[in-house]
């Protein structure tokens, strides 16, 4: 019964508490392709969707380790293999003096990789998105709280879902054109 010409239903809620409550109810009723839109990170939303941003943490860790290892390798290669220079008989592989740059490269790698990962996982940069076709959606970055049930959801039904969203406390439900 999916309407091919609509992206989904956009429901507006009065505040963050109502938003979390409705998100929980939707999840309990089997809706999976639901997304919330809010002007700040609402506490309880990730839990309501059973979503954990583990991938971001993993990317941070991996790129920090890669950065640090790369930094250390560079110094070792330069000082031992490519350009060995004997200074007063001190060992070429003088690891304590390689620590500062290894640390800095670890931080640099972690931040560059992690933030890039966060941005790409968030599907950004993105030129346009169906929800922004709704005029009222512009308030989502200031003071409005929305839930969007996408029409690709298995349980989605235009009339029934609209009704359900109203019962969850939505102040306004709009169909989102594709």
């Amino acid at each position, binding site marked *: 019964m999916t309407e091919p010409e609509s992206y989904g239903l956009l429901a507006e809620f009065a505040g963050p508490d109502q938003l979390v409550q409705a*998100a929980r109810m939707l999840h309990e009723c089997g809706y999976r392709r639901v*997304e919330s839109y809010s002007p*700040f990170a609402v506490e309880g939303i990730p839990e309501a969707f059973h979503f954990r941003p583990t991938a971001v943490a993993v990317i941070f860790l991996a790129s920090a380790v890669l950065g640090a290892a790369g930094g250390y390798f560079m110094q070792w290669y330069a*000082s031992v293999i490519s*350009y060995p220079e004997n200074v007063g008989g001190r060992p070429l592989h003088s690891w304590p003096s390689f620590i500062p*740059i290894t640390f800095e490269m670890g931080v640099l790698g972690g931040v560059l990789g992690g*933030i890039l990962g966060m941005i790409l996982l968030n599907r950004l940069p993105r030129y346009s998105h169906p929800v922004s076709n709704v005029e009222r959606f512009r308030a989502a970055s*200031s003071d409005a709280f929305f839930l969007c049930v996408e029409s690709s959801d298995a349980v989605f039904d235009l009339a029934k879902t609209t009704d359900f969203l109203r019962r969850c406390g939505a102040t306004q439900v709009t169909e989102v054109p594709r």
Partner: protein
Amino acid sequence: MPDNATETAPLVPPGLTDNSVSEWISGIVVKKKISFGWLGGLAIAFSLLMMFNYAIVVLFTYGVGIWGLQIPVAWGFAIVNFVWWVGIGHAGTFISAVLYLCHQEWRTSINRFTESMTLFAVACAGIFPLIHLGRPWLFYYLFPYPNTMALWPQFRSPLIWDMFAVLTYATVSVIFYFVGLLPDLATLRDRAPHRWQRIIYGLLALGWRGSGRQWSRYKMAYLIMAGLATPLVVSVHSIVSLDFAVGIVPGWHTTIMPFYFVAAALQSGFAMGLILIIPVRHFYHLKDIITGRHLANMAKLMLATSLVVAHGYFTDTFMSWYSGDPYDKFIVADKFTGAYAIAGWMLMILDIGVVQLVWLRAVRESPVALFIIAILVNVGLWLDHYVLVVQSLHSDYLPSEWRIFHGTIWDWMTLIGSFGLFLTLLFIFIRIFPMVAMSEMRSLVHRKPGEEKVQGA
């Protein structure tokens, strides 16, 4: 425990809503007309910037000989200014990252501002080592890039560590700033009245929609980034201090350096934060968001770091006596009795003496008093670096080499001109990006009463 009005004042004024926060802060950027005061300030700052450019052009034409440098004082104003500006940058990252990890919610009103301060201070700092090079056009020799000379930088040298530390710090500061700004750019995109504003902010916002999953990843990334920035901020000035501490010059060669450099950096940064925030909250009517409590907290941090710096001075002096090293003993005595004695005493009075007034509540509650103290503290810390660099070098092991250093007109023009760069960037920032992190303010607005943690006063 806090027991007076200023220090228990709410962080957000009652009655503030999501919409009024957004309207208020974004209005300064996208709706407010350009004022005469702003234009006048920018004009002064820009004139100083032009003076800076002029001094640098003359420098590049004639070389570093136009400065007061000689042997043995081959490090002069450029290094002093570099250390001082990098230090100022530290408080921004400290407020953004360390106070974030410690759940100090009062940081929300000021973190954006101090982060911008960090960026601009690091921009000023980065110029000095470059122009201090005898052949600045060969600066890229510092990078480990594949080259036909088959050369590598000396990775055992603190100067190379320093370059990696400062470049990492600058890059991470820019990213930290941009990530913090991302949701606010989306707000500006959605609220701007003009199409061109919507296009520019829209491109910068990357299409941020504030979806639940986006926010969740965003928060996770921000938290980890704060966790990485915290050791970074400590490492940067520690590594800068190793430029000195690894050298065998008397007065430099001590292990207290990294610790005391970081404390001095934070102190100068908190002071600079006060110097900037006090006038801005006055002229842009932000007193309800940046309250007296914020100023008092900044002042307390400035006071706390001044005590750490004082401890550094004490240990340094004690160790030079305890070591029995005649050169080290001489340099400490010379600091207070020799050619630079005025600077030596002034720095003690300004950066650890005057700031003790902050113990008085009346001083903490007076923005004017804090503003003046903060300026004096920063003058004191500049003198501290000046004495450290110049006084230590001017009389090293060979008395026949001793020479007195004085900055020339070009030294002073470069120092004062660097304020032009700093202030010009700051004036532009005030008009193009929101001064307060709106998305974080909004989540503070929604915090239920009583949820705010009690802060030790």
